[in-house]
């Protein structure tokens, strides 16, 4: 499905990613972990077109993605969320999700100006679809409220709703559990599982090991801009290099 080959990103003299290769199998939940500065978000930015890689190839179903703008990549079914909470702050929860449904709408400029009757039907259908998504992420009681007025954890759910509205086939989540309470993280883990059950492939960057190990099929470990390990959660937990990367060399034997 998604294949990353020899991906390299350099900022001037700093190498953020150096020849990273991995694949994401369709229908899987794949997690990318690694210490701060390992290049996880950089990899996300490169895959989704927010950053032009210095080298390497990113393909999706065999088609190259490098050089495409984020909106064209989203059009191909790859949708991401952001590490820092990212919503449309002044808009209501409903309008946030409706904006996420942009690609589901078809109304063009002339049709809008002409005020075609068909448009009203499309708007109703989109509003119904938005309501369904808001229900799914559990924010039905917040629908008319501006996103900026919601507590942090709920804003992250809005963000997830906006991403789901774009009907991704591959969903990239950048630390969806960051800053959440334990119970909120359980809710998010449950949502990610349900999203996968609906046929969406999930690629995840996350620091919370319990969450990662609980939901992932495959875990990829980045350190210093390279992949140091890849495998099932249990194998990764026992992997000596991973333990060294996370706990430091001397602690590995402890």
């Amino acid at each position: 499905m998604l294949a990353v080959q020899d991906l390299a990103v350099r900022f001037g003299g700093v190498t953020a990613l150096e020849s990273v290769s991995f694949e994401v199998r369709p229908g899987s939940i794949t997690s990318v972990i690694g210490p701060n500065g390992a290049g996880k978000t950089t990899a996300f930015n490169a895959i989704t077109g927010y950053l032009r890689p210095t080298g390497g190839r990113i393909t999706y179903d065999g088609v190259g993605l490098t050089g495409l703008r984020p909106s064209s990549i989203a059009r191909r079914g790859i949708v991401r969320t952001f590490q820092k909470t990212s919503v449309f702050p002044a808009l209501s929860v409903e309008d946030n999700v409706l904006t996420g449904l942009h690609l589901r709408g078809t109304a063009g400029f002339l049709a809008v100006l002409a005020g075609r009757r068909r448009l009203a039907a499309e708007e109703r259908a989109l509003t119904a679809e938005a309501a369904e998504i808001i229900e799914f992420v559990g924010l039905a009681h917040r629908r008319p409220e501006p996103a900026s007025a919601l507590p942090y954890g709920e804003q992250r759910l809005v963000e997830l709703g906006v991403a789901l509205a774009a009907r991704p086939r591959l969903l990239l989540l950048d630390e969806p559990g960051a800053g959440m309470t334990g119970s909120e993280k359980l809710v998010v883990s449950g949502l990610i599982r349900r999203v996968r059950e609906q046929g969406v492939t999930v690629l995840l960057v996350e620091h919370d090991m319990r969450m990662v190990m609980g939901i992932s099929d495959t875990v990829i470990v980045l350190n210093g801009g390279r992949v140091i390990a890849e495998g099932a959660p249990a194998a990764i937990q026992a992997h000596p290099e991973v333990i060294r990367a996370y706990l430091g060399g001397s602690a590995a034997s402890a």
Partner: protein
Amino acid sequence: MTRAGGFFLAVGALTLPLWLQSPYHVHVAIMAGIFGVLAMSLNLLLGYTGQLSLGHAAFFGIGAYTSALLTLKLDWSFWPALAAAVALAGAAGLFIGRLALKLRGAYFVLVTISFAGVVSLVSVNWIELTNGPLGLPGVPAPELGPWSLRTKTAYYYLVLAAVALSYVVCRRLVRSRIGRALVALRENEPLAESVGVDVTHYLVLATVVSAAMAGLGGSLYAHYTRFVSPEVFLFTYTVTMVIMVVAGGKGTLAGPLVGAVLFTALPEALRAAASWQWQMLAYGLLLILLVFFLPRGIVPRLAAAFPGRR
């Protein structure tokens, strides 16, 4: 806005010339209407996409000159000249939109200001075409079939139709997925891109529509004052539009209209009440008070005071 409120507003606007005592008052109403079109045009960019065009007088002036030149030099009649003014201003908007493709915020402001500067210089210096600083007198009054729209009352209705048309265009755009895409650009551009909104495409679209609308205002202005000179490119016009949009409520449909009526009528009222220096002082004071007490504008404040009405 509620249905009844809209109805009364429409009836009021349609019968306004009957209520107004003198042609001077009708004149003020006409200017308010022309500025209403201009303010709505600016609001489309500033209020919805969040991008400030400080060269909006350029589109206004291009509309005015196009219409004046076509009727004066090529003997076109008013309606095709009006259409050409709208089209040419829209084309200028396309040019600016494409130029500003990757530019946002302060850079967008700079490009629009520079563009207005260049167009203004052309109007002063291309004397064979524009008659330079002397301007173009004798722009003909519009005609509708056998009737001349020379009288102020007739012109009022022409302007009212333009206001209604611009309002409908704005309303339909804003309340569609296109409007949501414009607001998404204002609210959070990277997020908009991530869900497939081609932000640049919609910014260009908004610039074209906005510029075309300003061109409409320009043509109406030219055929009303019957005289066009490089003064139409004055920065004051742009500033006036910005004040109207911000005071009325940017990003609202009614805001620019409220702002246009207020800030056209107010200087006229002040003119009757005080000497020139005091007018400017009172105008400035009122602006400061508005910004201080109604930072988001009049319409959002009213909407908050009367929930359920938008």
